[in-house]
């Protein structure tokens, strides 16, 4: 199995080919905006850009993002080799112009060669057990740019939001999430998609919120309360009128995906991962010699 080749193909597909569910949601958003409006013009350009990037095999957005690989591997897998393959694939994709020189040494400001450095790209491994097929690997890539990452936020309930005190319940969660959306305005490249994590510690909250972005848009949480929260937050956010790129309009969000994690008695974090409309997430499943593209 040539992992470098497979992962390079995964990067090419992720960076240039917007998932069908996201493209469909954008198309529906365009149809709902009045013809000739700022929102419709913006969504029209987004549709055209999506088509062009796919046809040309070039990046949808010049900010090719933080590259985060989410792996599900058989129990007992030596992950070192897979992480090395991810680094080599990123190196190859950078040379090909699929990824911008997008990695900066924080202290010196120097650009890092080929986007490969310590902890870069990011790999999260989950060993799946028990497994029926010990040779089955699944890996998802998320490319999330800096504009939307800057709009992600974490709240600690109870807290004061716009002059009101909110407590440790779903009303508090709603207030936090909507506040993050309102604060972001168009800066996260609306219409966006939210990953939300209720609970966890601060680090786990951000990771789980980001992981939620891997879910397809039509997917509803299997937990009834969370599914209701997802629906309500989406409707509430789209009542704010922020619209595509913050120029006004109906489509502020395309989806909300929420999860809950356990927490300490003393903590109640609400974490929001804001993803731009260019939600670049694709996956691949490799079973023996069979390669199946996902997403």
């Amino acid at each position: 199995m040539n992992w470098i080749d497979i992962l390079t193909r995964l990067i090419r597909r992720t960076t240039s080919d917007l998932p069908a569910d996201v493209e469909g949601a954008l198309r529906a958003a365009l149809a709902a905006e009045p013809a000739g409006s700022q929102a419709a013009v913006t969504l029209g350009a987004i549709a055209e850009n999506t088509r062009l990037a796919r046809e040309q095999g070039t990046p949808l957005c010049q900010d090719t993002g933080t590259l985060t690989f989410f792996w599900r591997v058989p129990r007992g897998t030596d992950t070192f080799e897979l992480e090395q393959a991810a680094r080599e694939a990123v190196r190859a994709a950078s040379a090909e112009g699929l990824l911008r020189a997008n990695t900066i040494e924080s202290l010196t400001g120097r650009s890092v060669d080929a986007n490969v450095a310590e902890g870069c790209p990011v790999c999260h491994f989950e060993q799946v057990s028990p497994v029926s097929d010990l040779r089955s690997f699944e890996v998802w890539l998320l490319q999330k740019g800096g504009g939307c990452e800057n709009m992600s936020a974490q709240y600690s309930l109870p807290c004061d939001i716009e002059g009101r005190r909110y407590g440790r319940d779903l009303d508090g969660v709603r207030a936090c999430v909507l506040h993050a959306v309102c604060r972001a305005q168009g800066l996260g490249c609306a219409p966006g998609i939210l990953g939300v994590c209720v609970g966890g510690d601060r680090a786990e909250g951000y990771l789980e919120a980001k992981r939620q972005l891997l879910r397809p848009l039509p997917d509803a949480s299997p937990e009834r309360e969370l599914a209701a929260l997802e629906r309500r937050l989406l409707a509430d956010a789209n009542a704010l009128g922020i619209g595509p790129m913050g120029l006004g309009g109906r489509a502020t969000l395309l989806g909300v995906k929420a999860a809950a994690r356990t927490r300490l008695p003393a903590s109640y974090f609400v974490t929001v991962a804001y993803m731009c409309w260019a939600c670049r997430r694709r996956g691949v499943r490799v079973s023996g010699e069979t390669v199946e593209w996902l997403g």
Partner: protein
Amino acid sequence: MSELNYPFSEAVVRGLRVGEIVHVSGRIFTGRDRLHKYLAEGGACPVSLSDGAIYHCGPVVVREADGGWRVVAAGPTTSQREEPYMADVIADHGVRLIIGKGGMGPRTQQACAAHGCVYLQAVGGAAALLAQRVRRVAGVCFLDEFGPAEALWQFDVESFEAVVGIDTRGGNLYTEVEARAWRRFSEVLGCGKGETR
């Protein structure tokens, strides 16, 4: 829809209104965090920005075998990061167009009114589409110092689409939308169970 051609005259720029769609053609210069800080601190600019356009963009650019450059992706980056520097750059260099995304703050808006400059919103993330509008890379400055994403690229563009977000008469698309959004935020939460505790 207005056609704007480089060099951009003050009279034409002062005639633009928020919400208007424009097509920009001719030379534009990219610049983001490193360049703005450098210029605001009095650094010399290797090109003249007078009657010119600064595009907040860090493109994906590939070096061709013949030594030339090919622009692969070139959408706008968030402009707010340049708010501390933008007003000084407009005043000192006679910039007429700022192209970016997300709008800018009150100092930039004042500088636009005072010096005859407008802020244009390009579609964020539309990097493949906007790269198509770049017909030629005329040159690049600060490539080694700032790196490819932060360098000053000289693009010759044709019919580069944007919307006037801030004009010279105090019009600002973003502040209107934002004020309404915060009003609705209170309404949405006020009518639910999220009462004051």
